């Protein structure tokens, strides 16, 4: 069997001397024993299984929304107990601080007065929702579910790339990838103590129940989806089924007497907690986009009166805005009086004149991002851009530098991936999921996305990315 090692960046399975890392020894030994034909057969089995189970996502912009399977690579990614402990602590710290920050932003705004975060950044931030200033969600929890994107840098340190505090998706793949791998490659699990990921729906339901408005016994929980044609619909129905809650669309809900009800066969029934998978802009046409047909008129009003819990809380997107990201270490220090545990990517902020100058002079070596853009929109990848592209982007940047940040291109880690009967290194990221209920819990696992193209840095599913099962090893009894 052929194993190619990464020439750039950190290789997760092999050390600098080309030796197999300890955690990967048994796995690689097992793989070595499987003949090529057998691997092909199992790969085919996987594919059929994904299609039959309907584990698909919808690709936009194509006729009638084509359903695709998310490519799955069977070589699992392994994170040791020790590494994970560090990641877990770092994520809990981060989510704690971000919620204190949101409570402050929608409350007294002390951190702005104390100049920890420039107030103009917040006031210019599209996700900052003025009508919600003064509204406190139950237990001051804004982000019941966070998905934080991590990379491993050149020396293997887990580094935070960004937080997703709105509607992070992908957790259904975490659970389904494990199901699939244990069915297709049961022998992998013989020599490893892998921590289970299937308690997630239970944990999520507990977190949502905990968030219910005061005094609601046995609260009714529902998931609000934009509908069948949304790219993450599979996940919405997966979570509804696994949690045993209703999957509703906007038209199934109605606000009456400041309470939210769903239309059932036995009349209107009150809903206490809504795990909404619809962006702020669309949840309530009275407060946000008037043209939205996905939302529920009056939902935000009912939320403001404390009659319904929305998870995540509207307005929480401020915390994952790219303009705020550079300030997270300061936010952690300000609210917790601690140093940040997980490092961040070095970031230059266009809002600061000196740093804007630096960005201007080094554009060719930087990734420049629009702070209120997403999905690669309004972005320049300097090292990959032509001179003209850089010159053109510089003009746009100079018109309003305060709307941009810049980061170096990160040489993130690679992981053995089965490509054309061989094992080749491909770049991977990691999205762990963090639930905020009575305590903050990190699911021992996460979505490892992999750039299937050789040399590619793009792991997005919409651009040919795939995924892997992610193993967090249990502490070995010594």
């Amino acid at each position: 069997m052929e194993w190619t090692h990464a020439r750039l960046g950190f290789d997760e399975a092999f050390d600098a001397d080309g030796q197999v890392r300890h955690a990967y020894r048994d796995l690689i030994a097992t793989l070595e024993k499987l003949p090529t034909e057998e691997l092909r057969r199992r790969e085919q089995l996987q594919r059929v299984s994904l299609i039959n189970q309907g584990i698909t996502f919808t690709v936009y912009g194509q006729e009638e929304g084509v359903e695709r399977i998310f490519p799955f690579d069977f070589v699992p990614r392994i994170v040791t107990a020790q590494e994970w402990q560090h990641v877990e602590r770092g994520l809990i710290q981060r989510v704690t601080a971000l919620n204190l920050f949101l409570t402050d932003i929608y409350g007294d705004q002390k951190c702005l007065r104390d100049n920890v975060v420039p107030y103009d950044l917040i006031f210019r931030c599209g996700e900052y929702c003025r009508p919600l200033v003064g509204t406190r969600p139950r237990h001051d929890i804004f982000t019941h579910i966070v998905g934080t994107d991590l990379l491993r840098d050149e020396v293997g340190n887990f580094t935070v790339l960004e937080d997703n505090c709105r509607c992070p998706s992908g957790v259904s793949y975490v659970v389904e990838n494990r199901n699939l791998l244990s069915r297709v490659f049961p022998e992998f699990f013989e020599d490893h103590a892998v921590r289970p990921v299937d308690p997630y729906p239970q944990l999520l339901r507990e977190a949502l129940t905990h968030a219910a408005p005061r005094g609601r016994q046995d609260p009714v929980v529902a998931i609000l989806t934009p509908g069948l044609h949304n790219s993450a619909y599979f996940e919405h129905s997966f979570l509804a089924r696994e949690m045993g809650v209703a999957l509703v669309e906007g038209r199934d809900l109605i606000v009456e007497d400041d309470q939210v009800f769903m239309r059932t066969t036995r009349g209107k029934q009150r809903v206490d907690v809504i795990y909404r998978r619809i962006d702020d802009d669309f949840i309530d046409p009275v407060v946000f986009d008037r043209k939205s047909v996905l939302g529920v008129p009056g939902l935000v009003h009912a939320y403001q009166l404390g009659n319904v819990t929305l998870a995540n809380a509207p307005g929480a997107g401020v915390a994952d805005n790219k303009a705020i990201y550079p300030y997270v270490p300061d936010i952690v220090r300000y609210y917790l009086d601690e140093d940040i545990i997980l490092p961040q990517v070095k970031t230059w902020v266009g809002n600061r004149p000196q740093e804007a100058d630096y960005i201007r002079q080094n554009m060719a070596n930087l990734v420049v991002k629009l702070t209120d853009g997403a999905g690669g929109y309004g972005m320049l990848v300097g090292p990959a851009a032509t001179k003209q592209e850089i010159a053109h982007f510089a003009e746009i940047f100079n018109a309003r530098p305060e709307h941009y940040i810049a980061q170096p291109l990160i040489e993130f880690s690679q992981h053995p991936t089965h490509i054309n009967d061989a094992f080749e290194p491909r770049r991977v990221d990691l999205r762990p999921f963090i639930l905020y209920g009575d305590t903050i819990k990190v699911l021992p696992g996460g979505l490892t996305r992999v750039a299937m193209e050789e040399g590619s840095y793009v792991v997005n599913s919409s651009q040919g990315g795939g995924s892997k099962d992610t193993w967090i090893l249990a502490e070995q009894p010594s």
Partner: protein
Amino acid sequence: MRGMLARAAENVYWLGRYLERAGNVARILHVTEQLSVELRGLAPGLARSLWLDLPKIYPGAIVIIDPNASTEDIAKQHLRSFLLATDNELSIAASLRSARENARVVRENLTRESFEQLNQTFHHIQDLTNKPLDTSMALCDAIKKIQVEIFGVCGAVDRTFARNEGWSFLNLGTMIERAFRTLMLLQVKLPTLMNEPEAIELPIYYAHLRSMLRSVASWENYRHIFGLDLDALQVLRFLLFDRYTPSSIKACVHALQLNLNSLNDGEIMTAPSRMLGKLSAKLMYEEQEIMAEEHLDHTCRDLSTSLMEVHDSVSRLYFSV
């Protein structure tokens, strides 16, 4: 007691209807092909008209045919259209697509097995689109296979669906669809069969009645009761009033009543229960009067209108809260 999401109830109801319809179409295609082949030499006109009846039995079905084509080609066109055509809303492929869409929307109400079985069947019929299937035999073969798979789906649903409100809505959909299909078949086929046949046409007449019973999976059940005694009135009486054959109107109405009662916890008299009550009483006590009527096809039409009213009433009461 907590109710079911109205929209989900509606989706489950339609899942029941579309699954039943897909199975019904598969069966009728098969039976029609058999009879048509049998009659091709004996009564060429009839063999041809069997196919042309299909769009009447399934109002709304669009089959594009060449009027000058041979009966064999007409058969192929119908088989293909009712199996695969995307522009024929009544095709098995269209019904399975709709069934799957409904299942996807209420996936959280279905077990994994049920959904996977349905999804797999859907993908198989999608794959057929790319196959040549240029003979009637190949088409019938494919239909037979799909029919078995549809039974597989129904079996999985039947064995694993929680016996809750959703189950009642699923059954309501299945039973309304089934009764409706039986009545449509009777309406189209009855007028030609009610006249006493000439001796020479007897074999054709029998073949016709046989295949009609087969179309609604009731031939064996009929034989058990009436043995060799086969005539149109008897068949009609059987398909309307027999309590034990699953496609008879009386059996369907009975099943509908049971399911509606469990939705009402047997207490309140809702609008659809009232309608069904009337319908049931009519089938129970007016058998002789109905059978004595002159235009039995009109009677069937009136019965199907009553069923439509039940459908409307169920929709209003449960789905548009």
